[in-house]
């Protein structure tokens, strides 16, 4: 009899792991609380560094699943998990399902920018998040201010909800710097006459070609980078946004008016990640992500035998790293089940 693997979460990590485990010959069930697979990637237009369409990647994810004999459970929430007979009984929707192993891929949520009250998100009409800007790109909407005018000056605020002790998130979200560079270039592509400013603490261009993007953004597109954290935003009488920032390279405070302010929101653990961690009694990291068994040697097992983690439920990751992590998690699950069977 085939071993049964139950995967929670149908984003990039969940889908890729499901595809791999299915290819390995396991019986796989994939539960997703939303009506569609793909997770946050569905909201993205183009991906760094190549500006490849996100739809292309979600298409490949779906295609990989097509040939698999896995069971998909959409619109399904997990409400109970019980250890039973060396495996687990999972209450998924109205069903009780037995599994030999569980792989958690419940992903991340973007930081709620309203918590950074000083930026006025949700109050000032021309303050938006990087997610909302990406949706405008994806939907082919024009980049306009709340008054329907083309913005002449756009500011990007890096590290909103990341590396920020004030909101309790000390960690770097990894992808926001390069996303800001990508989005800044895309804005210049659409609005070539606009001025674009990125306000950063330091730029963490760790991936191959990321540094090239940073250079291209300046040399080809004229994006301005100002090293300094925006301290506050306020709304002018005409709806434009007044920002205050310290230019730490020039060593002086700076006050600037922008027509549109984009907040680069970081990663936080998703509610699903929090809930499943509590439900199963999995250990959390100090940052409230799910804690793997070993930070170097085993980043997929958890404190519970037969329960594994993949993707951004355990830390912020790029799409490429999430794919790689999901495949590695699938191998770890296989290793566990092979040992169990022998």
């Amino acid at each position, binding site marked *: 009899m085939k071993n049964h693997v139950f995967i929670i979460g149908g984003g990039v990590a969940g889908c890729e792991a499901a595809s791999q485990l299915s290819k390995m010959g396991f019986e796989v069930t994939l539960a997703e609380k939303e009506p569609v697979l793909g997770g946050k990637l569905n909201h993205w237009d183009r991906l760094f560094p190549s500006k490849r369409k996100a739809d292309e990647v979600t298409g490949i994810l779906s295609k990989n699943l097509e040939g698999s004999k896995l069971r998909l459970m959409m619109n399904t929430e997990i409400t109970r998990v019980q250890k039973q007979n060396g495996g687990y009984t999972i209450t998924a929707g109205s069903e009780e399902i037995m599994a030999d192993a569980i792989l958690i891929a419940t992903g991340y949520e973007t930081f709620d920018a*309203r918590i950074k*009250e*000083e930026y*006025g*998100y*949700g*109050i*000032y*009409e021309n303050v938006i998040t990087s997610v909302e800007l990406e949706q405008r790109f994806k939907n082919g909407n024009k980049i306009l201010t709340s008054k329907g005018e083309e913005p002449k000056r756009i500011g990007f605020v890096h590290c909103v909800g990341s590396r920020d002790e004030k909101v309790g998130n000390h960690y770097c979200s990894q992808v926001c710097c390069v996303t800001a560079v990508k989005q800044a270039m895309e804005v210049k592509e659409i609005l070539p006459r606009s001025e674009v400013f990125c306000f950063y603490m330091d730029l963490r261009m760790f991936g191959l070609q990321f540094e090239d993007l940073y250079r291209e953004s300046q040399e080809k597109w004229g994006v301005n980078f100002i090293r300094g954290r925006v301290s*506050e935003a*306020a*709304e*002018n*009488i005409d709806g434009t946004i*007044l920002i205050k920032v310290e230019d730490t390279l020039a060593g002086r405070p700076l006050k600037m008016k922008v027509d549109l302010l984009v907040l680069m929101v970081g990663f936080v653990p998703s509610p699903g990640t929090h809930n499943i961690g509590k439900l199963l009694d999995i250990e959390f990291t100090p940052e409230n992500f799910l804690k793997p068994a070993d930070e170097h040697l085993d980043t997929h097992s958890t404190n519970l035998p037969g329960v594994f983690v993949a993707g951004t439920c355990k830390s912020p990751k790029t799409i490429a790293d999430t794919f790689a992590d999901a495949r590695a998690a699938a191998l770890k699950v296989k290793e566990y089940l092979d040992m169990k069977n022998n």
Partner: protein
Amino acid sequence: MINEGKKIVWSQYQKNIANDHYFYIRSCIRQNLWPGSETTFLKIVRNELGKDVIEDANHTTCTGIGYHTDLVPLETTMTVVARLFALMTERGYDNMISSCITSFGIITEILETWKEFPETEAKTREYLKKATGREFKIPRNLAHASDIIYKFRKEIGEKGSRKLVNVKTGEKLKVVEHIGCHYSKMFPHKGVGGAEFPYVLIGMIEDWGGEVVDYPERRHCCGFGFRQYLVKANRGFSIACTKKKFESMEPFKPDFIITNCPGCNYFLDRWQYVLSEMEGRTFAEDENGIPVLTYEETAGLIMGYDPWDLGLQMHQVGVEPLLKKLGVEFDPQKKYLDKNGNSLGVPEKPSVLNFC
């Protein structure tokens, strides 16, 4: 501006404000600057709202100005504040109200320090006992006086005879609010509405029929900032701060300003005169300046009290244009007369700012 977004923020910063039986501590400077404000507060709370509020003639400064200028060490400040607690305890009260924002900030800071470092509380108790023989209980509830007016703003509005409306046009008056740094910037959860979008004064303005002006430099310092003014060499910086605020609010054409803090009221009022003398300009139409009132004075106007009993003649910027908008009847001849009809003296006429 999306008001619904502000409401979400406000909902996260609501504080418990005691309902009755208050021990009131006055400000060092307010009685000189705006002598009607504290009297009006007591009159409203006692006579209009029927609450029990007492004060003690033995109460002293909280040392706030000395503390923030590094003249008074923290241990001394804690002991002096502990003595205020002892006076309250001896009178059998445990709900403290502070008239001054800096006192409110000082007391809040001390209470939070004692929570984090209990040994400092123990030391303070020892110092107070040695120096005065007194003991004290920590207040069960600490409120700034504006919290009390905020809590009962609807009752004041209902009892009052006036709204913040221009009686000639029927339009809501545009009001700038300034809460003062020590109200909630240090401890956002200790103030109604938090630090970034404080609600304590907005609640009053909205419930009394006015319209709030949210201008870009709303959060900026009034110009006091202690060292900016108290160190004479820094006064240029002080007035530059205030000027920045006025230039920012000017396009919104506010009818008046409500403040929460003694220093803020002083600087937003007095520096308008100084700026007019220095630069030959004001920030309101017809060289009238923008009147600056305390929340108690505003509440007094809502209640229909006589403006000269409220002490509005003590403001540098003339309040008469505002009184006319509100439909307040007043006798200009009595402006500079005391309660017995004696002259208080008439200030020198400014060269630019209108003098009513």
